[in-house]
């Protein structure tokens, strides 16, 4: 039987075409069942999806592309970072804010529905790679996770996988107000120190996340150079820009996780361009070269303009 919209997954058996969808260990497209839909602190949703092939392949900071509804509007998939990766249970999670047409429609999802998910996509940040770049004895080098808004969510699988190896993980997390703050207890459970900042001071430190970052930097002044922290920042571009500026002339090694408007999310269209920092010219592509970049290699929206 043909699928109602002519595009549900199915086997194809003609000789010469592959039996299996994929040549290698690349991303897969799967009809994922919604295991749970929770509205969480900060007004965000966390949706857990049964997608064992993706859960098996994913590394922290990768993302998935989700087809919100079966027909042509919304047309493009929506990219979301992975807030949970559980290969044992075959489950992945996305944590998302309602911002527009697609995410409004996602609010109508129910447990038991299936949605088409494509992933895992992007480079991600492999724990072994993070650890390899640690020059000191494993676990000695401090890790700073800097987050703004929903940018906190994809850092959780990273913290979880680093937890057993790094004894010193600090989460710096900023939001507009106390109400917009997502739950940070998961991070605390895996042993991270969490500092929260709100712009209006309604919770944690008053001001932006760069405030506590400055303090952290100051407190590290001594040991910094001998055992430079590794920082990973995820959040709105202005925040990334500020964090990058603050850490520029320090030995802190900064990775930034970028967002850009995407069509495919798979490297096909060259839509998600981000300017390469000099001396390189041209563009990187967030979905295939990123979303995680060494901060020095990219120009963050407006950065370096007029220079």
């Amino acid at each position: 039987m043909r699928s109602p919209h002519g595009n549900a997954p199915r086997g194809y058996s003609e000789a010469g075409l592959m039996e299996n969808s994929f040549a290698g260990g690349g991303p897969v497209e799967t009809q994922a069942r919604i295991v749970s839909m929770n509205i969480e602190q900060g007004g965000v949703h966390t949706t857990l999806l049964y997608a064992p092939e993706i859960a098996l392949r994913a590394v922290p900071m990768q993302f998935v592309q989700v087809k919100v509804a079966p027909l042509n509007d919304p047309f493009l998939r929506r990219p979301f970072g992975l807030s949970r990766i559980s290969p044992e249970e075959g489950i992945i999670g996305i944590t998302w804010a309602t911002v527009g047409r697609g995410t409004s429609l996602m609010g109508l999802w129910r447990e038991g529905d299936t949605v088409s998910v494509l992933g895992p996509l992007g480079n991600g940040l492999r724990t072994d790679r993070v650890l390899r770049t640690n020059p000191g004895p494993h676990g000695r080098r401090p890790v700073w996770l800097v987050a703004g808004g929903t940018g906190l969510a994809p850092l959780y699988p990273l913290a979880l996988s680093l937890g057993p190896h790094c004894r010193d993980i600090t989460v710096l997390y900023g939001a507009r107000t106390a109400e917009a703050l997502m739950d940070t207890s998961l991070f605390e459970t895996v042993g991270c120190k969490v500092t929260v900042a709100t712009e209006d001071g309604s919770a944690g430190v008053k001001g932006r996340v760069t405030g506590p970052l400055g303090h952290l930097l100051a407190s590290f002044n001594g040991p910094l150079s001998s055992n430079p922290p590794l920082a990973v920042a995820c959040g709105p571009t202005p925040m990334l820009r500020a964090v990058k500026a603050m850490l520029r002339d320090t030995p802190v090694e900064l990775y930034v996780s970028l967002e850009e408007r995407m069509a495919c999310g798979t490297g096909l269209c060259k839509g998600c361009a981000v300017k390469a920092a000099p001396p390189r010219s041209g563009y990187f592509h967030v979905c295939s070269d990123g979303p995680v970049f060494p901060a020095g290699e990219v120009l963050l929206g407006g950065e370096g303009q007029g220079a």
Partner: protein
Amino acid sequence: MIDLSTELAGIRLRNPLVAASGVFGYGEEYARLGDIRWFGAVSVKGTTLKPREGNPPPRVCETPSGMLNSIGLENPGAEVAAREKIPWLRQFGVPIIVNVSGNTYEEFSELGTIFSDVEGISALEVNVSCPNVSSGGMAFGMDARSCYRAALSVRKTWKGPLIVKLTPNSPDIVAIARAAVEGGADILSLVNTLIGMAIDIKTRRPVLGNVTGGLSGPAIKPVAIRCVYQVAQAVQVPIIGMGGVSSYRDVLEFLMAGATAVGIGAGLLVDPLLPKKILADLEDYCQEEGIVNLSTLTGCAWKG
């Protein structure tokens, strides 16, 4: 046994599905996502004489049942394409169409010369319809005379099958199609994107860095079908129809309108497995309808 194969000016395609230019790069990314052999033929990214960086971001934007793109022909240039990209792509044994774009008639000739020396190219596709570059591009495809000259410029240096790719933004696509054929086109591709734009009501500015972009996807399918239907009745050469394919039904619609092969563009960005699914659905369809050769459907909406 159902036969999905078709022929484009002597090029044998195992099935009528063509990866449209610009959504397939040179195949490297796709090879990680699916099987290049699912396609009857592949058209590589619009390639220019010199490498191009492309346009500033944002470069893509969703619209109702469609999308805008202003990639701006980001590509490594003809030399790299000829030396590295195409030789790699040959291993899959799928006919390769090289989509080329020039700023001047001379550049078009030169592109023809460069690719004449490369083995394994089944056809050159002259893009006289790209809306995203400031010089050349669509300008050539908007009137019959310049389209004719652009086709002729490649024809002089390229002896293999020549495809001219037309824009739906022209006022009279039939006249332009005729001019392309007179200029030497063996095959026509239609359609490229419509010119559109979107405004971000939050920033109150155009969404795309380049302000306007090319509209593609299911939204434009009715325009594309109309173009294929009109042109197929006016010219003798085969047509690669495209614009908004997202299911086997759309493929059938293009074939019935008069296309011999059917391109998949934006649909591949949404679902990289689309060709595989469409092939399976086409087989089922042929089975149910008792169709032995899918290619017999070409033009049946007007052939009577």
